[in-house]
């Protein structure tokens, strides 16, 4: 069970990246499935070649960011639909990942990784490692919340909220989208790198369906904890990621197999997307629903508006 929480916390970094694109930029970015593996591949090959594991993980950030920039350029300068731009980058990355790794599976046996310290002291799988990883997630949340409150962060949020308006205030929304996609996929790259080090290998297929895990974490987490303030929304993503892992763990214990996990992910996301349309849920449904629709007439009464 503790391992599930650990996995959830590592995947939470990726989910925070998905939060940036899906919620902040209102952009469904499928690059994630490719950049997650790219992060893992670059970090693994670097570690095998003797690079410091922390530096190797930083490399994963930059290579992920580069992937995000490509999707961003395809979408903004190439005027390619957002979904398709993400898919194109994702598919192209599959070949690039194989080139980086040289083969489909790259073991990290005996290499020093960012988790070696925990592993040698037998702290993995204990609450100590959970605490440390949670701390890591808190740092990531703090950085994201800080960023989204800076001038450039506000401009990025406005780009996802009302593009026309923020352009009329002098912001180049193309650049904002590219920057957002870069940051997002950078985080995804880090997450992939740490997962590879956690499981002891990088694999060409490890990124498949990762976008669904990210979406499930964002949607489920924010359905439970809300998104009234940025910091709540970001923290909710972390908890959503852990909750997702626990659901997977429970379904495995209930007799489902590892091979069924993608199906479980998909079903979970479908449920999370359909629930808001079910009126019977009342206010809870509004909380799950996406973006501006979340402002309800009920909220309006609370604040007592109308000039």
């Amino acid at each position, binding site marked *: 069970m503790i391992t599930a929480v650990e996995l959830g916390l590592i995947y939470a970094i990726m989910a925070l990246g998905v939060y940036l694109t899906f919620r902040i930029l209102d952009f469904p970015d499928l690059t994630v499935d490719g950049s997650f593996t790219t992060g893992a591949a670059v970090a693994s090959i670097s570690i095998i070649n003797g690079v410091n594991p922390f530096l190797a993980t930083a490399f994963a950030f930059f290579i992920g960011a580069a992937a995000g920039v490509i999707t961003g350029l395809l979408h903004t300068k190439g005027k390619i639909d957002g979904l398709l731009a993400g898919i194109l980058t994702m598919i192209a990355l599959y070949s690039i990942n194989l080139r980086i790794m040289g083969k489909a599976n790259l073991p990290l046996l005996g290499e020093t990784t960012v988790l070696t310290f925990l592993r040698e002291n037998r702290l993995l799988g204990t609450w100590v490692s959970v605490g440390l990883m949670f701390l890591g997630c808190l740092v990531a949340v703090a950085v994201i919340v800080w*960023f989204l*409150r*800076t*001038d*450039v*962060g*506000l*401009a990025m*949020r*406005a780009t996802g*909220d*009302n593009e*026309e*308006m*923020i*352009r*009329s*205030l*002098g*912001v*180049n*929304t193309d650049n904002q989208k590219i920057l957002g996609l870069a940051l997002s996929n950078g985080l995804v790259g880090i997450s992939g790198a740490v997962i590879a080090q956690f499981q002891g290998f990088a694999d060409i297929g490890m990124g498949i369906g990762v976008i669904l895990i990210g979406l499930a974490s964002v949607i489920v987490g924010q359905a439970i904890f809300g998104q009234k303030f940025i910091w709540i929304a970001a923290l909710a993503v972390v908890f959503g990621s852990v909750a997702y892992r626990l659901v997977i763990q429970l379904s495995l214990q209930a007799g489902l197999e590892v091979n069924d996990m993608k199906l479980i992910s998909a079903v979970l996301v479908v449920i999370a997307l359909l629930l808001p349309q079910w009126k019977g849920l009342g206010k809870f449904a509004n909380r799950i629903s996406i*973006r*501006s629709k*979340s*402002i309800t007439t009920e*909220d*309006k009464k609370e*604040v007592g*508006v*109308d*000039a």
Partner: protein
Amino acid sequence: MLEITSLNKTFFPGTVNERKALRNINLTLTDGEFVTVIGSNGAGKSTVLNMVGGKLRPDTGTVRVAGKDVTRLADHSRARYIGRVFQDPMAGTAPNMTIEENMALALGRGTFRGLGFGVTKRKREQFVEELRSLELGLENRLKAKVGLLSGGQRQALSLLMATFSGPKILLLDEHTAALDPQRAALVARLTEEIVVRHQLTTLMVTHNMEQALRLGTRLIMMHDGQVILDLDSEQKAQMTVPGLLHEFEKIKGAQLDDRTMLQ
């Protein structure tokens, strides 16, 4: 301040849907001039506004703001000089962001946006000051999401955001048309006050002739992509709504006659 020279624009050229939206428009606004623009649908009013704002590019002709040629600049690149308020009250603000965050976005008009905090204590004091001028009590609700505001409140906020960070030109595209009469009157009054206070050179498109006569220092009427009537402040003061309609019929009729003759 604003100089529009021989502007031409044809939509869908070379197709059956070809439409000449602007025919050789010339228009010069002096510093602080407040021009109201009226005309029938498809007269080219909004097209002119969109060309000044940078949403559309002319086929030929130039747009100059304070002597600077901005014809080829993208909309966001010329935003430093130009404030805009749209017809849709939802269009001018970011609904999922708070009032103070929206104000911070507007304060950064045309400047480099870095990693400093968007809303600081000092900026907040300035926002309170500015919001107070609207007399809507918004200064007490800085942390409320803008999506919670009524249409009138949002439009008033849009107007403030378009003006308080020092643009040279203000473009108003039927910005009171989507509001009920009471709120429309409020926003019209605020517009007048703000334009005078900031000495803004203003171009306002409206469908409301009474409003076009009451507001502003000059009135132009457009038809079929041309300016067909240009009243200065004195002539405008003498003009009435029936008078405008009469002028319109007269000029339109004359034009039709010309064309019939040519055919």
